[in-house]
């Protein structure tokens, strides 16, 4: 295998690995994260515009 072929293989593995890992982590994260807010309840009738980060 030539030097450029080895470099190409390494680059492919790196980029492919990053893409694959990002996909899996992103998907798992989006499906398993807790909801961003609780449902409204009658004891706290004012609805917040948002929650400070």
């Amino acid at each position, binding site marked *: 295998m030539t030097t450029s072929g080895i470099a190409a293989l390494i*680059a492919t593995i790196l980029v492919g690995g990053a893409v694959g890992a990002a996909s899996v982590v992103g998907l798992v994260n*989006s499906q398993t994260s807790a909801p961003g807010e609780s449902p409204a309840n009658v004891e706290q*009738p004012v609805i*917040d*515009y*948002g*929650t*400070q*980060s």
Partner: protein
Amino acid sequence: MPVDRWSGLWSLALGLLLLGPSLAPGYVLSYDMVWVPDLSLRPDFLGVGSALPRAVPSDAVVSVVDELLPGWLLQKVVLLGSVVGGGWGVARLLRSAPLVARLVAIGVYQWSPFLAERLVLGHWPVLLGYAVLPWVVLLTDRWRTERRFPLALGPLVLIGSLSATTGIATAFAVLIGVGGRRTRCNVQALLLVIGANAPWLVSGLLHAASGTSDPAGARLFALAGEGTLPAPLTALTLGGVWNAEVVPASRDSFLVWVSLAFVLVLGALGMREARRRLPARMLLTLVVLWAAGLLLALWSWALPDTVAVIAEHVPGGGLLRDGSRLLALCAPLLACLVGLGAGRVTATAALAEARPMVAGGLVLLPVLLMPDAAWGAGGRLAAVDYPDSYAQARALLQSEAGPTGDVLLLPLSSYRRPSWNGERKVLDPTGRYLPRDFVTSDELVVSRRTLAGEDPRVVAVAEALSAENPEQRADLLVEQGIGVVTVDNDHPAQVPEVAGEVLLDTPELTVLGLAGAEPPEPPGGWITAMTLAWSMFALVPLAALGRRLLEWARRRRPVPGE
């Protein structure tokens, strides 16, 4: 100025994937985004009401344009345009770069945290400004170099000036893009942005007495970090909105660090290419915009107390509170640099055999680093229909037999979570659905902390509602010009009883009529001032056309002696 086919298709595909179900028939109602079937023009929308001109000129423009297109369809056009327009713009900026650079730049611009977060937050005028920004850079550069006014710039500047903050950002981009030694060109650019921003500027000056804001907002709305990424580094990735509720879950994971590495490494690699491929003056414009946007955002994070002082004492100073909103200015340069960096990586000779795979991975990476932005932010943006009771209430107020006076929206709180909207938060849409001026709470509650509003009429109405009995409340409301009271039955808060005729009673809405109310008349001077302001606004595209016709006539004029 066409965009090449592959860039156009990729941009459109990303737009469709991002918006997903929100493009279905119906209305997308999310936080500050309220669209209705037919928005009626009214004094408040023209800037002569008692409230600060927060939705001037956007509401007035929508109320005119939705005479041509149904409200729901106009919203789709605006949403898709605000997502795709910017992508096409950066592709045009990089027209001499390799295809992979353009595609990556489109991804960075369109699949950015800024766009995803502001979309859920419902800041559609901000997103329109974001979409026109690359075009403004392109066209002002052409104006300066060719010494001919680009006809498209007038309408684009108007689209980019539909709210105060966006108008400031667009005006800054125009002035920096055109700025040079040619005084005449500079003056024309200044007149252009003054005209485009005249409605909110003049209305803001008329409301100067109530134009200061609650200083506590400066700390609450400041630039924020996402996940474990500190705020300054988050800003480099175009994230950092104050509201944690609208931040995609993927931004709370280690993926934010990967995103940071992605933009920093490729951005650094793209710098040399940018100097080679972009005109030096255009690159300077992009760098100045990036630096200004980043510095303003960082200011709100590092020194919120100084922003608070300005918001508290300077009318209009509250515009600086939302620190990350001006990060839009950073996006064109960032997208160009990352795109060009990606182009440089894929051009590396060593990658010969793997080039297509590496290029494909880089093009997809912006999407894969924030996958939960897809399909309407993971289903958070969806189109719904209003219950029939809204149309019934509107018909009641449009009939000649209906009560006179303005509308009061109860409960007196800003936001709702209607069951028919999937319990998604939205600014109370009732007022915009109905055809009259309305009074609603302008207090904002953030993390259970209440920020005071500015509208003196809301204070007067709240006092009226605190009277001892329903009859007194009704009398005091009529004195304030309130002739109609709507009660959102979907809201859990208790509403003080008001004595009036029940005109409509449905599970969603109750409408009461109060006899004898007359809406307040704005001062004559205000009407004159706003007529001038709107005339300037309307003249922007006409003046642009006139300027172009003048140039055309000059070129056609025979030269003496020939």
